[in-house]
């Protein structure tokens, strides 16, 4: 069966809409919009679909949840708590969990989706960072992404405070302790947030309106902007055969990408449903209602808050008193500094890189991480910094499970948080260089065929054959990293603007950042089957024949 024309059910409404808003022009241009394909391009979609699921499940929860701190006596289905005094928020959370069919399922899917939302954003962000996909013209979308991540943390914090169980109260108490530590305005902010003294009667209802209206509203607007910009600017693509800075190669939106995206949404939802069914999360009925007088040992926040928890634990007890005022550095520094470093660093990175490399051109072909060793190393150093803090957020568990003294874990962490990133930087840098050399070997030397050949004089060798075209295209997608004209190599007069200390620093950074890229550039002349298209933009500097020979010898053939 095939279609001779659009079915009436579609043609009718389509004409109706086109007559009124001229949608045809838009669809003509966009129905077959091409989307490049790579597994890593799907990571952001996980976050997008999780957000949609969060909106759906969250709306369901609001039908029963009561954001009130008024005291009630529990009289529901969960036996162990019957007769216990608690807030209405906690009571209604228990009601959703035990007395609404599907309530527990939806609550657990909502919590899992929140974790997946943040996790999806994080890995998506790492993909964009390591492939340099934030470069011009996509800096704005990158900044929107950083804002989204920050807001998602706030959304998570306001969300898990709502059930008003003992664990969520511990998080709220720490939030209060951090807010009140702010110099000058801390006590005022705290009193305004909590409607007076902690815990007060207002914070749940205030967090509720932030959590279900304000923050998701902003998230929705920013996500829409994120999507529109992605659509307008077209997606980046990995280097490969036929892929250039001026084209995009892939599958059309309609029907292939559309169907795949639909399936991917369903997969995300399906996996979250699986987790919500079988993997218990935040069993609030076990924690009991909140009271500021109690806490359970081993309290842990959701994973995305772990790094803040870790940095609070690592900090030594510094506090400054002067002129009758107090500066609680042991709270301020760990609560603000790591987050500040990470978020500001992320937001500024595209511009810092442009400043260092002097590169103001558009980039649509993504870098392979190995081909920009310094960027990749900086990324890994940041991950290590974050990772150490995150791990130390659970140092009590580490201490208990591995029988290490609790204080030892803290002291080791205090060192690791500085040393770890440096080590990570060094190792990553060497790995990138090593991988580039491997690429070079592939192009110059071919790939192992699995065929063993005996030479007339008795030596056995493995026959190498030329690599496949797509492999060559991928490897040769490497571009040298631009550097600014640094100027004085002894005799020349440095260009204006490079003579002051800042200029000299910039020149030095630029030189370092672009180093080691030309040294092992991939020379197309050595490769017998270069397909001749010139889509790679700037061709890296050629490797001399001598270099190539040395390389061959070194490999033992």
């Amino acid at each position: 069966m095939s279609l001779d024309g659009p079915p009436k059910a579609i043609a009718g409404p389509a004409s109706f809409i086109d007559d009124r808003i001229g949608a045809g022009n838009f669809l003509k241009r966009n129905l077959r919009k091409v989307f490049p394909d790579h597994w890593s391009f799907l990571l952001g979609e996980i976050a997008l679909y999780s957000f949609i699921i969060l909106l759906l499940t969250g709306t369901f929860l609001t039908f029963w949840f009561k954001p009130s701190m008024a005291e009630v006596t529990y009289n529901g289905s969960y036996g162990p708590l019957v007769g216990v005094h608690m807030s209405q928020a906690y009571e209604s959370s228990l009601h959703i969990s035990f007395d609404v069919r599907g309530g527990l399922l939806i609550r657990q899917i909502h919590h899992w989706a929140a974790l997946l939302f943040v996790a999806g954003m994080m890995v998506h962000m790492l993909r964009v960072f390591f492939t340099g996909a934030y470069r011009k013209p996509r800096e704005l979308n990158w900044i929107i992404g950083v804002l989204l991540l920050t807001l998602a943390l706030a959304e998570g914090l306001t969300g898990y405070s709502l059930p008003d169980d003992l664990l969520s109260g511990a998080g709220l108490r720490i939030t209060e302790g951090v807010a009140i530590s702010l110099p000058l305005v801390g006590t005022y902010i705290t009193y305004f947030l909590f409607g007076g003294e902690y815990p007060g009667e207002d914070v749940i209802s205030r967090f509720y309106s932030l959590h279900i209206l304000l923050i998701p509203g902003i998230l929705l607007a920013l996500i829409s902007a994120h999507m529109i910009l992605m659509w307008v600017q077209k997606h980046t693509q990995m280097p490969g055969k036929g892929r250039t800075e001026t084209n995009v190669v892939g599958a059309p939106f309609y029907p292939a990408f559309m169907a795949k995206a639909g399936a991917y949404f369903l997969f995300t939802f399906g996996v979250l449903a699986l987790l919500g069914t079988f993997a218990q999360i935040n069993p609030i009925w076990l924690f009991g209602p909140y009271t500021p007088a109690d806490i359970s040992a081993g309290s842990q926040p959701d994973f995305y808050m772990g790094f803040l928890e870790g940095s609070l634990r690592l900090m030594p007890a510094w506090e400054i008193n002067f002129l009758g005022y107090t500066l609680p550095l042991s709270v301020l520094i760990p609560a603000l500094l790591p987050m500040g470093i990470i978020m500001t660093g992320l937001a500024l990175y595209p511009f810092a890189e442009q400043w260092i490399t002097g590169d103001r051109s558009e980039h649509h072909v993504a870098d392979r991480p190995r081909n920009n060793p310094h960027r990749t190393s900086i990324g890994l150093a940041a991950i290590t910094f974050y990772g150490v803090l995150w791990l130390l957020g659970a140092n009590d568990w580490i201490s208990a499970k591995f029988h290490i003294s609790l204080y030892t874990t803290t002291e080791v962490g205090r060192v690791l948080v500085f040393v770890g990133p440096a080590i990570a930087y060094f190792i990553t840098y060497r790995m990138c260089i090593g991988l580039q050399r491997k690429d070079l070997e592939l192009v110059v030397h071919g790939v192992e065929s699995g065929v063993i050949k005996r030479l007339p004089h008795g030596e056995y060798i493995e026959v190498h054959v030329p690599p496949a075209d797509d492999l060559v295209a991928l490897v040769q997608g490497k571009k040298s990293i631009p550097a600014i004209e640094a100027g004085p190599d002894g005799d020349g007069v440095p260009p204006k603007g490079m003579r002051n200390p800042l200029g000299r620093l910039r020149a030095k950074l630029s030189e370092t950042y672009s180093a080691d890229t030309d040294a092992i550039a991939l020379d197309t002349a050595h490769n017998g089957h270069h397909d001749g298209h010139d889509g790679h933009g700037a061709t890296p500097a050629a490797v001399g024949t001598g270099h190539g020979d040395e390389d061959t010898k070194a490999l033992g053939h």
Partner: protein
Amino acid sequence: MTENRNDIDQPDDRVPRRVIGTPPPRGEESVLGAPPKDDGPIVFEGVKFPDPATARRGERVAALLFVVAFLAGVAFVVSYVVFQVGTIDRTQVSNFALGGTLTIALLSLAAGIVVWVRQIMPKYSLVQERHPMASAPQVREEVEKTFLQGAEESGFVRHKLLRRTLLLASAPLGLLPLVLLKDLGPLPGTSLRHTVWNKGRRLIVEGTHEPIRAADFNSPGGILSVVPEGYEEDLNALAKATLILIKFRPEEIKSGTKLNWTYDSIVAYSKICTHVGCPAALYEQTTHHILCPCHQSTFDAADGAKVIFGPAARPLPQLPIGVDGEGYLIAQSDFNVPVGPSFWERGDAEAEARGQK
């Protein structure tokens, strides 16, 4: 889903075809059987249809998965009706039934669509041109001209008074939202410096709400969580006034502890950690260490709760206690320093308190 189904077509005569380290294919035969034939109708460049046999097989598999999804969806509705909630066990069964059927329905539907895309839809390798994001120079020039013309026509530039009073008018309006937020809460005043403890208020055991007779709390190493009488359920009061009460042997108490604030070697400290306010609830009897489970600030209970490890900068404040006529433990006064986390206006309250003496 994550496979590069739409990858760029490769000529088949390259050996090896894909990954380094994998053995070369023997002859023309693929490991999976006959090589796919390219006799499907090629309509567009870069669009390659699968052979009809694959498509037919794909259709059967996808259809099967869709039927499974249908059945699971129906089972979900049935589960909703059949499995009621109301007890822990019934809630659990309902959760498994609803979640299990939902999971199967969603995953089968997703899998079916993937089979559809991979085995029935063509392989694509379409190419589209990109254009620079920036508009053409003429366009920019024209926009600039239009902007200047509009600015000129509006009179905003020429009429100084208009411009200045407009800016003046908008300044207070921008501040209004901030002003409106003032009633979110009262000002702190000195409320952070006081708790509900005062002379004569009895110490009450948290949970049981019983007053404590000093003579009954007599085994050294004992610890109690204590709340003020009359405020047993007042969370605002408890957030500052909760205590831990520890009974020592007299010789264990060190110089940091204010002895005249103890009664019969019973010492009361604020339970609210001086770091960020978690209840410092863990006590190690042999070492007399109080540990806050949140960030592991550790205090030496025998030595005035001074900090021996962790991020807390100050000792847990000690509350002066005594007994009333019936022998029940009471507070002698409020704390002489603010309890809980540090804040800007706090200052060195400990030094001030020492100065008063």
